[in-house]
């Protein structure tokens, strides 16, 4: 009905008919959320009460609020922010999200209530609102925006932005983990992904990325504070802390692998073997009844031994094979991973000495005890109980902090530059006097060392070690976390690891299709976004060599970084 009007209004973009149409859509969406959606209280949390929105309805109200923010930008009254954000693209992504969310909500009501007879008008009002938003926003013209690198805000504003982002992340994570219902969790996921895409499309994330780059120390510390505070939001519930701990162990291992793959460019498909070696050493020296080594040193010593054993294995496998490059290294490391698995499977006393207890592995590994602190007990801090998994979570957080520090320090050091040189052109690097073999070996052994360290804790956290925990698929998963997140960046790996570990845990109803999706995801990522979700800029350029605009931006950012350090000196 508004086609003719909107066509007439194209020449005058603000406040135009499409603007009004979108606004009407937003209002309908929010009003619908205040009305009940269904008669049955048991679905979608509880969406049956008038003027008392349930959690799912609040999500849509948040979408509405963001949409209003974008619409306000388009009135031209907030020129500073409008210059920075492309509100039309943001609105489009947002309205598609809202529409998909509402359609899904109707489908869920139809399937679970069961039948559409149980749907209340509210859900339709919101659906129509969302569709109007789509209709309106897709007619809006995009407006050009300035490159965020050139925008400088007062530093306190930037820090406030970071703090707000981190706080949202903490509460979002705590809320998402709290959802037991698969449908609610998927709706929340849709909302989260949609809002993130909308803000990213509007350019908010490239701006935040620039801010993050400028205030790296603040954001690192802040992220750790958030990660540290997370267990306190869980009120002693072990179910979520167990998932969080698994995510953290996975992420820590992936960070170690990222040094080898992301920085040095050596594709290691047997990395899980190093984790396994650490775990097995730790198990064999534990107080388990099945432990095969009589010597029981304190845990700190065990960690060091486990890490050393892993890195020695890394040297043994690395020193001959690093002379061959590329794909061959990948296959040799894969073969090594298989050798490790088969060996721990075989060493049961009948085939070779009894070290690993064969296919049964070493069960009953006791809880970790450092000094008088037993990791199995529940401790209470500030009145909040922290259970067994929270203890391991904190320990892994410390390990992750160590690995991240090592990672970033190495990345910015002479060694890191050497790795980048090797990764991009080995022959040129050698000609420039980079010690290619030495650096490769260091990356390999160093990565193995970190994995061994993580493994020694993992053994205690898992209570048992068995050969089938350390199969090739796990190596592939680690690699996928890096590829998905973005090679060579810390944030990317953390995102990738979280996505890969958290989603299967929460979306149990797709559990059977988990691996299928995983395989497809790898293929699609390589095809459409090979640099990952949070790419390092240099890496992105490697995959898009003819993107001159990207190259210029990286150059600019680099120059800015240089002048900044010079200014500081």
């Amino acid at each position, binding site marked *: 009905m508004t086609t003719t009007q909107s066509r007439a209004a194209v020449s005058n973009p603000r406040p135009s008919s499409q603007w009004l149409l979108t606004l009407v859509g937003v209002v309908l969406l929010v009003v619908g959320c205040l009305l009940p959606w269904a008669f049955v209280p048991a679905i979608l949390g509880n969406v049956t009460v008038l003027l008392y929105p349930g959690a799912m309805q609040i999500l849509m109200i948040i979408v509405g609020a963001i949409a209003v923010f974008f619409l306000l930008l388009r009135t031209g009254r907030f020129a500073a922010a409008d210059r920075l954000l492309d509100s039309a693209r943001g609105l489009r992504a947002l309205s598609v999200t809202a529409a998909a969310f509402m359609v899904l909500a109707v489908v869920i009501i139809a399937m679970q209530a069961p039948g559409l007879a149980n749907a209340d008008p509210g859900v339709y009002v919101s659906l129509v609102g969302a569709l109007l938003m789509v209709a309106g926003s897709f007619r809006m013209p995009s407006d050009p925006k300035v490159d965020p690198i050139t925008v400088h805000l007062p530093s306190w504003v930037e820090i406030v932005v970071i703090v707000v982002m981190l706080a949202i992340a903490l509460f979002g994570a705590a809320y998402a983990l709290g959802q037991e219902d698969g449908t609610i969790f998927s709706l929340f996921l849709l909302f989260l992904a949609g809002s993130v895409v909308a803000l990213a499309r509007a350019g908010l994330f490239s701006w935040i990325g620039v801010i993050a780059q400028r205030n790296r120390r603040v954001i690192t510390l802040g992220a750790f504070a958030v990660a540290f505070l997370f267990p306190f939001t869980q009120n002693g519930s072990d179910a979520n802390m167990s998932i969080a701990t698994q995510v953290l162990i996975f992420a820590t291992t992936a960070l170690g692998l990222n040094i080898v793959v992301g920085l040095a460019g050596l594709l290691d498909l047997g990395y899980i073997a190093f984790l396994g070696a650490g775990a097995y050493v730790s198990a064999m020296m534990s107080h388990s009844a099945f432990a095969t080594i009589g010597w029981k040193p304190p845990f700190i010593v065990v960690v060091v031994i486990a890490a050393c054993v892993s890195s020695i294995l890394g040297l043994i496998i690395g020193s001959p094979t690093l002379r061959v490059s590329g794909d061959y290294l990948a296959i040799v490391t894969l*073969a090594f991973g298989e*050798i490790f698995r088969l060996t721990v499977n075989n060493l049961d006393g009948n085939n070779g000495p009894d070290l690993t207890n064969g296919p049964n592995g070493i069960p009953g590994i006791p809880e970790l005890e450092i000094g008088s602190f037993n990791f199995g007990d529940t401790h209470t801090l500030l009145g909040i109980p922290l259970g067994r998994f929270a203890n391991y979570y904190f320990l892994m957080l410390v390990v992750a902090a160590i690995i991240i520090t090592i990672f970033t320090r190495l990345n910015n050091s002479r060694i890191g530059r050497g790795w980048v040189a090797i990764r991009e052109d080995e022959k040129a690097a050698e000609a420039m006097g980079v010690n290619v073999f030495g650096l490769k070996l260091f990356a390999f052994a160093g990565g193995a060392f970190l994995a061994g360290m993580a493994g020694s804790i993992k053994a205690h956290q898992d209570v048992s070690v068995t050969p089938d925990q350390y199969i090739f698929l796990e190596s592939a998963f680690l690699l996928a976390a890096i590829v998905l997140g973005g090679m060579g960046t810390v944030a990317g790996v953390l995102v990738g690891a979280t996505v890969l570990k958290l989603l299967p845990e929460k979306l149990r109803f797709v559990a059977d*299709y988990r691996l299928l999706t995983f395989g*497809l995801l790898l*293929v699609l990522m390589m095809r459409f976004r090979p640099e990952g979700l949070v790419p390092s800029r240099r890496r992105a350029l*490697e995959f898009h060599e003819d993107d001159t605009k990207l190259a210029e931006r990286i150059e600019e950012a680099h120059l800015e970084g240089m002048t900044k350090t010079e200014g500081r000196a």
Partner: protein
Amino acid sequence: MDQFLQQLLNGVTLGSLYALIAVGYTVVYGIVQLINFAHGEVFMIGAFGSLATWTLFFKGQTGLWVLPFMIIGAVLASVAVALLLERVAYRPLRNAPRLAPLITAIGISVFLQEAVRLFYPGAKSALPFPQIDLVTGAAFQVGGITVRRSAIFVIGALVVCAVLLWFFINRTKMGRGMLAVSQDPDTARLMGINVDRIIAVAFAIGAALAGVAGVAQGLQNSNIDFFIGFMAGLKAFTAAVLGGIGNIYGAVVGGLVLGVVEAMAVQFIPGTFGGSPWKDVWAFVLLIVVLVFRPQGLMGARVVDRA
């Protein structure tokens, strides 16, 4: 002595199977310098293709005349999958950094395994493979050694395939084109060779042989499952490297050598490190040793460092 001959026969049988799959790695590598990590899965698809042919059209039949149809079914399935892979996944990445196709291949590998496991009826556990007259059944004794009927089929299949492959490469226009592309793709293109088509043909040839290997594997082990491709693929890759990757005859020799080494390791390595639990370990150790001391492989056509 009998024991030695027996293990030799076992080794050659096993090696023939490896060789059939290894050709697929080496043909593709020789032309596009790509390790088609998903090739093991193509072999697995071949095995399931022949099983599906039998279940759909010949269920209950055991006559030898069924076998050619089963082989055709296997070859069709594996070639179709391989061509699809090449077109959809590898071709768009031809100029991408080397990491990209390899990771894609891992993804495809997992995807194909899972697709078969989830969508092939009953494939969540091992499925029995049809028994065919003459090719399976009671083994017979020659001198002191036991000869299984399926072993004759496997070795025979390798011989026939090798002869056909030799003929194809050296006597047909397409085969000569393949040689030209593997030596210098740019010049070959200038000479009017359709490089894209040659690459597709390379994938198809490898897949056809893998399909035959799939039938052989089924007859040999009398059941198949969705996971057979992983280990077989890894071993066949080892065989290809052993023979010198890129060299087709090298792949055949490498496969046979690897098979014999495995069989001998089971019998002749003394102490507790011998026996079948360790045979895979020795195969992979052989791979690492070969890469260290003779990276160009036994027959060495191409230098490994090219990778």
